[in-house]
């Protein structure tokens, strides 16, 4: 299977290790990974902040960059959710019938990493080894926009040596919410405080999730408070071979 990696601007710029890990996992499973260099940003931040008009050229850009891809895979639940939920309406809003058709055609081929692994490759044990105590945070978009269900947990449970623990109220938002984290910084931090308490109570060494953006929020709090707990993208755990990550 040939897959085109939709890295997302956040991973590309701030969390390249998540992208490298996704490539490692996919190649280990025998998939052929491509990376269309013309991709930039999916426009989620613009769209969610009220700048839909400014997001439309980015929809067009995405459709062009991935036009030739058979399967498009991304290590970001929220960016996949953006393409799936918002692109069709944005394309219609552009008034460009060609773009409407292209988007219609492309949306079904965009998959989040766990969806690709479980539903299409048909694998749960990806051959990883990670002997650490890990807690999984189901991000709002992986939970509600994509309905990933227990797919991430099935992948994590199959990781060798892992001590996977659960946190109370796992489905509560971490407070990121894109520009919400800055426009309503105080409320965002209040939400984060409760998430950090839930994480710390588990005694986990590592928090993982299917979205670097939420991990940026959780990790930003964890390091600021010198908790010693670190964040890793799900792909990084799936790529781990047991050596100190």
């Amino acid at each position, binding site marked *: 299977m040939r897959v085109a990696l939709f890295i997302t601007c956040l991973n590309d710029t701030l*969390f390249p290790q998540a992208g490298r890990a996704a490539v490692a996992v996919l190649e280990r499973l025998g998939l052929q990974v491509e990376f269309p260099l013309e991709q*930039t940003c999916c426009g989620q931040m613009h769209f969610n902040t009220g700048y839909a008009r400014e997001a439309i050229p980015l929809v067009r*850009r995405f459709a062009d960059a991935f036009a030739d891809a058979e399967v498009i895979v991304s290590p970001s639940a929220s960016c996949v959710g953006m393409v799936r939920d918002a692109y069709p309406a944005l394309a219609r809003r552009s008034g460009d019938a060609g773009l409407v058709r292209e988007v219609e055609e492309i949306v079904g081929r965009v998959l989040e990493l766990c969806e690709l692994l479980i539903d299409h490759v048909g694998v749960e044990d990806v051959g990883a080894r990670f002997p650490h105590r890990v807690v999984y945070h189901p991000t709002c*978009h992986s939970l509600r926009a994509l309905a990933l269900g227990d797919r991430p947990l099935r992948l994590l449970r199959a990781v060798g040596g892992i001590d996977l623990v659960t946190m109370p109220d796992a489905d509560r938002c971490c407070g990121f*919410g894109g520009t919400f*984290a800055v426009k309503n910084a105080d409320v965002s931090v209040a939400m984060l405080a409760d998430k950090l308490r839930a994480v710390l109570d588990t005694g986990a060494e590592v928090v993982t999730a299917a979205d670097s953006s939420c991990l940026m929020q959780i990790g930003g709090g964890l390091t600021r408070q010198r908790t010693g707990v670190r964040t890793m993208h799900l792909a990084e755990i799936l790529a781990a071979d047991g050596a100190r990550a």
Partner: protein
Amino acid sequence: MSPEQPFPVAARAALSDSQLRHNLAHATGSIRAKRAAAVAELDDWEQLRAAGAALKERVLRHLGEHLLELEASVTRAGGVVHWARDAEECNRTVAELALDHGADEVVKVKSLTTEEIELNGGLARHGIRAVETDLAQLIIQLSDDRPSHVLVPAIHRNRTQIRDLFRERLDEAPADLSDDPEQLVAVARAHLRRLFLRARFGVSGANFAVAETGTVCVVESEGNGRMCTTLPDVLVTVMGIEKVIPEWRDLEVFLALLPRSSTAERMNPYTSLWTGVTAGDGPREFHLVLLDNGRSTVLADELGRQALRCIRCSACLNVCPVYERTGGHAYGSVYPGPIGAILAPQLTGLRQHRSLPFASSLCGACYEVCPVKIDIPSVLVHLRDRVVHAEQRPGVRAALDPERLAMRGLARVFASRRAYEAAQRAGRLGQGPFVSDGAIRRGPGPVGAWTGARDLPAVAPRSFREWWRSTRG
């Protein structure tokens, strides 16, 4: 009610109130768990939601016809229907009716709609005293407070605070009153019975009104509402025009959706239904005031109008992580929480509540529980777009708005691979003075809003695409 402060400012004060935080976390946490259990009992919950949404959508598409049918049915049953364009017209209508009957005191069933139009204040200007009879609403009234929740207006108060209030304000409260709920309720009951027995004029809202039969429906837990709708000689019901439902059998859907969503009950304790007037039973006169107050404007917005499906269950408030931490007052509207954030700005015009559509992390918990499937996150995003683009302040200030400049600038960066890659390199260089141990701990300008309490990862020494090119290119 007009917002005194933008949401982020009002929220800051609420976040520091540890008593409020504790009361809200406890109250919303327990109702969340109960609702989930009550809903899980029904195998066809999703079908019920779909039916509720479809019924309400149909009502909104043919609202005019249903309202005319309702008017005809109520009139046929001996009631009188009044139409009110806005709050002022509505308040005047109710006041004139009360004055016509020589009433200087009216007993009220808890009603959000009459809160929306500030009916109590409107009546007071005519020398008429409105008495709230819902226990929580009475608590709010006695303390000159504002409701902070759609269903549980005094959710921000605990029983010790209520004990102190009763001791101070109610003659019926003994000096040694404890904060035992039974004792508190007994005091309220003694106080309210006195008012019910002398009441001549009652005012209610409506949960539903059936166009086919002219029947008005109020659901409640305490029975105080039923006192108000049956004991006085005259009953006036104020209802928003979106509360009409076409047929009697539609109640089957809504009376299953509403109690489970709001109080996590299979059925609420009191469901009052009345049709016009009946000789020898209940009020001798019944008036129904149909209130627009911005609703027909909301109807014109194709995406936004789904907010008018709302049946005021408050499930979205109870699951909202923002509401849970700020409470209702920060929203500056009778309609707080996620539904308030999409309803209030649409009812009043965006200018008055322009910060509310942004008071959400878009986590989607509200949409998941909404019994009539209002896609609140999508409407929030839609209203943000309207705030940013359509109803902006014109002129130089808008053009120089730092957020707008930043968003437009970023859009240009993302529009070209070359600009994007250059920006990555520039960010790496520019961040230099702010980075220590791979993170920005105190950022400049808007970055400071993030780094006030959180570290920000620095731009990576080598972006993913640089790694890709160097290893695969």
